[in-house]
């Protein structure tokens, strides 16, 4: 007796949904099952900040997932790669022919005293993360009665959450441990421009400050002793790949689950994609690369392109937070080097800042903030590694750009 081939996907987030959608669209015939820890269908996590502002309804942001069987709220607690078997939280087991780990990432809880409930069962009232629609719903409810909020962490998530809260009429303060906002993507000048733009929206920023504790009264206490009075706190201190299952199953785990260019782990028939995967030493943690990985794996497993390879991404960091918008890509803060040229254009009246980092006639990195007219050209130039023309200024101004 034959039975259907089965592909088990652990996770029902963006990478999982994309994999399932592509797998069936490309003609895959195996039964695909998505085991999701969350009690709902896959949705577009990228849009959560704008669910908070009300631009999207929670139901609206559902993503397609092909003809996969969805098992919401089915948390996988154990894997046996040798037996090709997984164990669910209720103790039942299921088998697979191919396994795809798309477990995603968890918010990082920083070492701050007083974040948790006294009994240690979770975040205390008024303290939020923003990773799931459930987080979003809780935060949204609190925000309706809040006048002030503190966002801990001034990365992409912190900035977009702060802006979303500000759009709801909440006065927001960002406490950021790094030297300036979003230091992984922006240089100091861009961060300054961003800080100014946030201020006009009602968001104050304190870079170079560490939060030490949340007091019993619910105040945010900085390392310098200063205290911020607030009605709610949002933690935006980055995410960490969910690797516990993989680790317990004996798979190679670094920061994320280690995969090769075929997105295979060391164990036969076990793959990993998305925020939980570490490829060539990099955990991207962005939707774009996660989808590229999902596309490659789907093409391999459905047979449409068994030789497909994922060779890495040069993702464009793109933030849109209401009126605030920037794009950053490549290396934007290189060490001083005689071969590198840096081109900057600042327009204080328009609040725009642009920067190109060039090595000879090649683009190494770029930032566009405030005026993104040339973003398409820049992205293309970086992605294709094309030599630039004699006057790369066209990549900074619409004057003489694509048209």
């Amino acid at each position, binding site marked *: 007796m034959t039975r259907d081939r089965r592909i088990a996907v652990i996770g029902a987030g963006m990478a999982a949904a994309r994999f399932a959608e592509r797998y069936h669209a490309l003609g895959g015939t195996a039964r695909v099952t998505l085991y999701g820890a969350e009690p709902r269908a896959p949705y*577009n996590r*990228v*849009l959560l900040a704008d669910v908070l502002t009300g631009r999207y309804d929670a139901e609206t942001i*559902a993503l397609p997932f092909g003809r996969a069987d969805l098992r919401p709220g089915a948390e996988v607690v154990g894997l046996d790669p040798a037996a090709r078997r997984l164990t669910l939280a209720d103790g039942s087991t299921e088998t697979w022919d191919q396994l795809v780990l798309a477990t995603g990432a968890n918010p990082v809880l920083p070492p701050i005293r007083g974040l948790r409930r006294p009994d240690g069962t979770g975040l205390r009232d008024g303290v939020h993360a923003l990773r799931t629609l459930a987080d979003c719903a809780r935060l949204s409810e609190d925000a309706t009665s809040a006048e002030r909020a503190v966002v801990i962490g001034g990365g992409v998530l912190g900035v977009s959450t702060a802006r979303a809260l500000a759009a709801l009429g909440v006065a927001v303060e960002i406490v950021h441990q790094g030297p300036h906002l979003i230091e992984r993507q922006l240089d100091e000048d861009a961060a300054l421009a961003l800080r100014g733009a946030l201020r006009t929206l009602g968001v104050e920023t304190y870079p170079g400050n560490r939060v030490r504790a949340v007091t019993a009264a619910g105040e945010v206490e900085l390392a310098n002793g200063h205290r911020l009075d607030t009605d709610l706190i949002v933690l935006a201190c980055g995410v960490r790949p969910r690797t516990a299952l993989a680790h317990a199953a004996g798979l190679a785990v670094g920061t994320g689950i280690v995969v090769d260019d075929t997105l295979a782990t060391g164990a036969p028939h076990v793959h990993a994609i998305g925020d939980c995967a570490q490829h060539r030493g990099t955990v991207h943690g962005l939707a774009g690369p996660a989808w590229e990985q999902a596309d490659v794996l789907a093409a391999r497993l459905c047979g449409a392109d068994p030789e497909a390879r994922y060779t890495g991404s040069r993702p464009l960091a793109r933030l849109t937070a209401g009126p605030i918008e920037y794009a950053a890509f490549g290396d934007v803060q290189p060490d001083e080097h005689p071969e590198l040229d840096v081109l900057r254009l600042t327009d204080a009246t328009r609040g725009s800042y642009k920067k190109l980092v060039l090595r000879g006639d090649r683009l190494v990195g770029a930032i566009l903030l405030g005026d993104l007219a040339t973003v*398409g050209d820049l992205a293309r130039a970086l992605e294709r590694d*094309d030599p630039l023309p004699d006057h790369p200024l066209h990549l900074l101004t619409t004057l003489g750009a694509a*048209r």
Partner: protein
Amino acid sequence: MTTTTPAATATHCPYCSLQCGMLLAPTAIGSAVPVHVRERADFPVNRGALCGKGRSAAALLGPGTRLSTPLVRTDGGELRAAGWDEALDRVAAGFAAIRAEHGADAVGVFGGGGLTNEKAYQLGKFARVGLGTATIDYNGRFCMSSAAAAGRLAFGLDRGLPFPLADIPHTDCLILVGANPAETMPPALRYFRELRENGGTLIVVDPRRTRTAEQADLHLQPLPGTDLALALGLLHLLIADGTVDTDFVAERTAGFEQARAAAMAHWPERVEALTGVPMHQLREAARQFGQARTGMVLTARGPEQQSKGTDTVGAWINLCLAAGKAGRPYSGYGCLTGQGNGQGGREHGQKADQLPGYRSIEDPVARAHVAAVWGVDPDTLPRSGRSAYELLDSLGRPGPDGVRALLVMGSNPVVSAPRAAHITGRLRKLELLVVCDAVLSETAQLADVVLPSTQWAEETGTMTNLEGRVILRQQAVAPPPGVRSDLRILRELAERLDAPADFDDDPETVFAELRRASAGGQADYAGLDYRRLRAEDGVFWPCPTADHPGTARLFLDRFATPDGRARFAPVTHRPAAEQPDPEYPLYLTTGRVLAQYQSGAQTRRVAELTAAAPGPFVELHPRLAARLAVTDGEPLAVVSRRGRALAPARITDTIRPDTVFMPFHWSGPGRANTLTNPALDPTSKMPEFKVCAVRVEKVLT
């Protein structure tokens, strides 16, 4: 003594799907051509306006331009003049012998979207009844088949425009996708101009800043092959902006949930990365279209000639449906059909899967109806055949699936087919190639038998323009001696093949039969006759009875689906079949220029047009030119996996720096279709003319 000037004949242009009205007035005795073109101001489509092609069309009637005697290939391989009986006997005997030895499907028929309705109808009947072959398709497959497929899926019916062109100026926001009417149908441009004069917004989507794009309020310049992602991104923004017409979606559509989910997978940042269109332009386009009271989306070959053309058009239709801009006055989706009878040509049975009246050849009821009109047993009718590229690719192949003889009518695939060098090679492998044409086209030059047929002003017939308006193209001159009509050629061949049905060669009689065959079908012509077409400036189908006024506007009450609801297409973006890589780092896109038409078989024979557009060229951006150290006019080779085409550089900043453009009107070394990719759309079988990967090389001279 007084002479009376013979009256001018009211008729229509020989070229594109507008079918502009024109008058053909006799010229003085001794003139090179028998008539000249005059304005026909009262015809509603073009209101007197004509482009250079239309104005110079009478040159096609001049001596030396057209064929006037049948040609047959000698044992020595030359084409020599022959009498009609010799030529027709040879064709009939050849078809009969191949049919007897290899089966009827080994004899193929390839039609064209420029044929009159009568010819298209008769050609389909000839294939199914005269030859008994399933092997028939036509070049319309290369034209608007993706739009046709998407339209049928969404609305249950395919008609190029669901409204008259004259409605366009009254819509609030129009998105023109991959269409360049400023060069392909200039007399239509006034409708877009009037739209803007009325305060409406024109948005043009095109990888090139065409003359049309230059007139737009907003020009989105996506990478070739990414229109589908662009449409999904705009739908995403309509949802986010709250401009979805939820009442319309609830009352008149089905399938929105899936379309919405697909749109959610195309959030603005991602669409910007896929298409190269900056997010602020996406937002502006979505805002304009979403907030407009009425709106239209019109597509042409850009989004359609892709290996995902059906899905791409479906995504644009989704946008209309979500915004409530379909099935209402001054709103809707339409396709700007290309060829003169691209519309009628797809309705009456020269398509592989179709019977007259836009009926399916697999539908038993349709088979019974048409077989009754033809007086044959329904069971004798063949089933669906293969699509145009598949048909051409099977020519001369050994084995049971090979097509050994081909009758070509009104098409020039040597120039117009994708991967044209390969297709030319296939045509050469045929045992018998027969071409009916007015001129010695590149395809006719390969033929074993060439049959010179009447054209345009030399004959009468009906055409159906892009609006679905059936018009009468009237004879204005006597055909030259030695030339016969396609209808007569088909009749004589049918008789020689002992066809079990009658084939008339009088157009009006054939039209009467077509009316009966189409009756009850979607494209119902039953209520039309030549008198009405003459008197009413054409009539819109469906027109089921003589007292029916015709249907200028479709879908106002219900869509043509069984439940009356339009269907959202569950589509998602995928890349073009061929993406640039280090070896072929650029996109090639192809298209047309103002002074030429399609494969150029007609226009390249008109001196005035050839002077205006003498040959092919390669458009490239100054930055690309600088990188390749190419100067304007320098000879270039454009190389794809399928071949190499030569043409001079034309440097212009109207094109994206990662894309080159070639017009496809020419044969020989500059033939753009040598390069194009025959990757087919799974639904429409449309080849991917509009995007493939190439490199550009300097040619050392």
